[in-house]
């Protein structure tokens, strides 16, 4: 018999599959049938006769399963949880980055200009959406690295603000 100790989101779930392909979830027997649709990561899963369409993919040691518009993360119980990548910058300097690829619409602040917290630095257009990028800190604009009309990629540094 194989035992899979999994963590789904935050909840531990144990699945046991014996030689005869009998399946138990947390010790209780369930009737399961898994069918892969075509060549891709799309599945139909019958659990006790109830039909689920599921799409599965993975990143590192975590697998993700989308069922009914919800995304569940699944990892083995003995693996360490994924750590969150941080993009916190020191308080005395802030990088204004493009949250999305897009086009610079207008530059509101100029190099050398003093800005307050939440003051508008520039506006970015992505799809039909206009985004206002604001300064997270009070300080002075030390660099503006783009021009109006310029195409920028996601994560690109657009301007720098430093604490005085």
């Amino acid at each position, binding site marked *: 018999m194989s035992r899979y100790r999994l963590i789904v*989101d935050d909840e531990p779930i144990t699945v046991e*599959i014996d030689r005869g392909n009998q399946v138990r979830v947390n010790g209780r027997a369930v009737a399961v049938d898994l069918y892969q649709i075509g060549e*891709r990561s799309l599945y139909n899963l019958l659990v006790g006769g109830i039909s689920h369409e599921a799409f599965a993919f993975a990143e590192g040691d975590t697998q993700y399963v989308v069922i009914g518009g919800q995304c569940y*993360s699944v990892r083995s119980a003995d693996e360490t949880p994924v750590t969150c990548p941080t993009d916190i910058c020191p308080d005395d300097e802030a990088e204004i980055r493009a949250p999305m690829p897009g086009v610079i619409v207008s530059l509101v602040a100029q190099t050398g200009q003093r800005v307050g917290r939440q003051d508008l630095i520039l506006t970015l257009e992505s799809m039909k959406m206009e985004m206002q990028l604001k300064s997270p800190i009070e300080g002075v604009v030390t660099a503006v690295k783009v021009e109006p009309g310029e195409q920028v990629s996601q994560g690109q540094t657009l301007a720098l603000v430093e604490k005085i």
Partner: protein
Amino acid sequence: MIKQVLIANRGEIAVRVIRACQELGLTSVAVYSEADRATLHVRYADKAYSLGKTLPRKSYLRGKRMTDIAQEAGIDAIHPGYGPLAESATFARCCAKAGIVFIGPRPETIEQLGDKVKARQVARELGLPVVEGSDAPLDDDQILDMADRLGYPVLLKAAAGGGGIGIRRADTPQEMRRLIPLARREALFAFGDDALYVEQMVDHVRHIQIQILGDQHANVIHLGERECSIRFRQHKLVEESPSLAVDEAMRAQLCQAAVRFARAVRFVGAGSVEFLLDREGQYYFIGCHPCLQAAHPVTEMVTGVDLVAEQIRVAAGRPLRYTQSDVKFRGAAIGCRLLAVDPSDFMPATGHIEHLALPGGPGVRIDSGVFEGSEVLPYYNPLLVKVTAWGETRGVAILRERRALGELQLMGVQTNLSLLLQLLDRTSFIRGAFDTSFIEERPYLPEAKSNRGRMAAALLVALLRHRGDERGKSHPAEAPASAWKRQARREMLGGGR
């Protein structure tokens, strides 16, 4: 005589126009940007020509390039779809100069309608009620004076604005002072014209548009109303026809007003006259779009009229095939727009469509610009698919729409699908008790995950591992649903947003 039609657009609307061309036996000609080489409109069309780089300014907005292609390829007519070229008098003139039929109104009409201030004047002269505001573009001081006179909050609008862009709300004179330079810069950038005007803010309104058709022989008819109140800022989400807010008497008034307005501007082609309806049942004229609207399928479903075919016929000089009494309304239609956006804040989403299953069945119409394998880019309209359902009654149409959206599967790019499903389940929506602030007042609620879902996810992973299928474990580079992943990770870490 029109034999070949160049479709100066992309996405679902280009596909819609190509379909009409094919049904009329015309050669359809697509144009595409660098990034769109493999998109649906290019693959559906009979012919296709490259426009240039990916950015709209370097491709789909290049009117001169469109007319050059048309001339070189011996194309008779250009259909602009909707959007900037469809509302550009300059482009319509360029077409005429190049000897190409522009499928739309006369340039003078487009000009008159494109300038919101002029359009308001025409409406006033006809005695149509308009929202209080300025009748001419204003300078900065005049804007502040006018806003004081109207009383805050007011709307600061770009005279050349359209598609919900170039409209800002100001609640105080301080805010207005801050907004004026910003709005001017923006209007100049977006529309090449920095003229601004001010309008009173009317709260709790419903947005009703009347579909009109006109030909070159001075015939104008209407095809009833569409309600487009369900929106989030400039993103329209749901359209329906007929509207529950419009009774017989109101319908007669609005349609008659729309036809009178269309006659006054000598309207040719398909367009929509836009009105606001307030809680007291007062209506206000707000503008007229000189082109096919994204919302047009609901009208086609309740009237049976092919608006695009009619546009092409009248552009060729033929009279409308319908008189007003020929137009019969049957049942109700409701259309929902699947957008590539985060449902909680409508931030654009991008990515690769890994899996797409579109709905079908009785009474369902699909207008899609995407396919499995297509890339959703940030530079274009986020509209992916329109799902429209028809029913003998509004209730049946809603049930069908609900069923159809339930069938729709799209993986790889985040969409507003769950928001649309929630909306269709809301009793206030079903009763018709809503206005344009409906979505903003009811933020998206991420649905609680079920134990059944968690168990199914665990079973799937366990069975895959048991079978030795380490799906995805080995190829994280081709990670499909990055937005899903981010969301799941956030939830896993208990971070929320």
